[in-house]
């Protein structure tokens, strides 16, 4: 289906990444946002609070991020598309309901405008150190999808993509922005509503006496119903059977958790999206994402001037990790250089998928500002030796 035109601010604008994220959510059909103020994400909910009342949306400032992250799940089961927005410390508090969203297969979008951590860290300065938390932060086995925009334009587009992926796979989807992308202001072109594709909620057409709320189809995703339709749904955070009823044993755990994981793992190649540059004949692959990918690209240009054969794999989807692509590349390149604004997280994935077939070098940064191109260039030179 196409986007509801009322939420689409068609035209060319000068927007920050955070403002563009807000517009992306509106275009995607999000009409419920619960949030709690936290730098550097607050301007998203501020714009939502201002824009929603004329567009048929409800914003509520909750008492904390724990409450925000479950209020959106309630709104989804009421029939809304819903989002919450936060940064590191709030993201930590939301882990509880990321698990609930995963096990109850509640489609929702969580935006993490990353800052430096741990703890209160660097409230006003950027980081990219929440990647593993996004992947593994809640307890138990589960899978999620996470996207990393590198511009305000992409913040707009990826927020829509995040909602679409959430609806398609019934998982929480994270927009892993960072303070730089959130606050940089650039041209953002918002297309007409009819050019924006929206993945509709997968509501069941089964009558209540035949509907099994957690029986999945071929793609391992069950159809949804919402409160108030007469389905007498039961939704629980306990391990449950296809009816949604708690069953506390190993067989049901295997069946449910295996499916929750497989629905993403087995479709990873379909979900993953990367931007590639000059990979055809390169010897060194620069791997980066988010704001760091823009500095990495400058380093790539400088390295090419020096005659170094460098290509780039920019991760648009950071989870699931583009495992297939990295494994392919590892067969024929000499090295990967991973540039990320943390002291080594995504590099573990690259190293795992390179599986000893190509060297893996890390260009780390503790956060607070971006890398300099020279830092990354230095690693490229080292990789070329």
């Amino acid at each position, binding site marked *: 289906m196409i986007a509801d035109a009322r939420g689409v601010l068609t035209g060319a604008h000068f927007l920050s990444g955070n403002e563009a994220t807000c517009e992306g959510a509106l275009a995607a059909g999000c*009409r*419920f946002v*619960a949030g709690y103020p936290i730098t550097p994400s607050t301007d998203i909910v501020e714009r939502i609070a201002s824009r929603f*009342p*004329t*567009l*048929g*949306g*409800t914003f*509520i400032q*909750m*008492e*904390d991020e*724990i*409450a*925000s992250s*479950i*209020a*959106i*799940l*309630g*709104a*989804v*089961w*009421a*029939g*809304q598309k*819903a989002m919450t927005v936060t940064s590191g410390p709030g993201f930590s508090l939301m882990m*509880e*309901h990321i698990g*609930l969203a995963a096990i109850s297969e509640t489609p929702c979008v969580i935006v993490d405008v990353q800052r430096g951590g741990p703890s209160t860290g660097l409230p006003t300065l950027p980081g990219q150190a929440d990647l593993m938390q996004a992947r593994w932060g809640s307890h138990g086995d589960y899978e999620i999808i996470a996207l990393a925009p590198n511009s305000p334009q992409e913040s707009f587009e990826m927020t829509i993509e995040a909602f679409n992926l959430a609806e398609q796979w019934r998982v929480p989807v994270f927009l892993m922005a960072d303070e730089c992308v959130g606050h940089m202001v650039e041209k953002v072109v918002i297309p007409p509503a009819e050019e924006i594709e929206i993945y509709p*909620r997968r509501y069941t057409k089964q009558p209540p006496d035949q509907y099994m709320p957690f029986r999945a189809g071929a793609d391992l995703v069950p159809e949804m119903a*919402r*409160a*108030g*339709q*007469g*389905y*007498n*749904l*039961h*939704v*629980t*955070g*306990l391990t449950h059977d296809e009816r949604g*009823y*708690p069953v506390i044993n190993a067989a049901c755990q295997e069946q449910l958790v295996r499916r929750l994981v497989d629905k993403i793992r087995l479709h990873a190649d379909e979900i993953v999206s990367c931007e590639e540059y000059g990979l055809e004949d390169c010897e060194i692959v620069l791997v980066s994402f988010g704001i760091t990918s823009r500095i990495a690209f400058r380093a790539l240009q400088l390295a090419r001037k020096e005659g170094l054969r460098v290509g780039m794999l920019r991760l648009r989807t950071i989870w699931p990790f583009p495992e297939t692509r990295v494994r392919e590349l590892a067969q024929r390149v000499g090295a990967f250089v991973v540039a990320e604004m943390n002291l080594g997280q995504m590099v573990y994935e690259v190293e795992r998928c390179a599986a000893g077939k190509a060297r893996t070098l890390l260009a780390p940064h503790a956060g607070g500002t971006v890398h300099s191109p020279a830092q990354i260039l230095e690693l490229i030179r080292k990789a070329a030796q």
Partner: protein
Amino acid sequence: MTILHPVDTLLRQERMPHIWCPGCGIGTSVNCFARALLQSTLELKQVAIVSGIGCTGRVAGYMHLDSFHTTHGRAIPFATGLKLGNPNLKVVVYSGDGDLISIGGNHFIHAARRNVDLMVVCINNFNYAMTGGQAAPTSPLTSLATTTPYGNYETPFNLPNLAESSGAVYVARWTVFHVRQLVRAYAEALTRKGFVFIEVLAPCPTLYGRRNRLGDAVEMVEQYKASAVIKNGASTREVGLGMTGPIVVGKFVDQPRPTFLEAMHEQMRARLGKKYVPLEMTT
């Protein structure tokens, strides 16, 4: 289906038997709640029930309604999203004292302050029963629990007073001895708008009763009968509970004020006029 009991239609028969111990008061409260629902004019498919974690947290799973069994302490913020996401729903939160008042205490006071249109039922059995009988913020002074083996020395919350002072528009307390009054209280509360709070004292003979030598379930309920003082309109300041002494029951507060959604609509219309578009239901 053979109807065996007047409230059968409201229970998920396929989920029986339930997990509650013999003598537990939660089932009695559920029976009263189901009767109140059957008496009400509400369309049952528009009624949703939300629970947290614990013995009472299992109530949602036994009610033949749209039912949500959420995380520990978070039933109220889930219910807030559910209600605001579809204002046509009647949303009932049904959970225990540890869940709603300890880990969920912050959500409780803020939902009451906002006057979110929720009926909140707190089954108070004075301890954490699901985990084996630990002290709760409702445990009376000197009471014994696994984590207060020498007696509790923390002052418990007075729940009706907490609810009223946080902004609840309707506050009542009954025990599971008072089944008729409880049905009436539930039925009345279902007609009220805004944050409605009912505390129900329920025996936990297996843990709280046994440790504190309060006898079996029948003796515990007899104690409720003997100690209960019905005092409608009582000041909530004066209804705190101890190990012994009177149990003041009745309807303490019934004072409407604009709900969260009413206040939001009014404010938005005042500032935005015809530009204001309230949330639409998904079709």
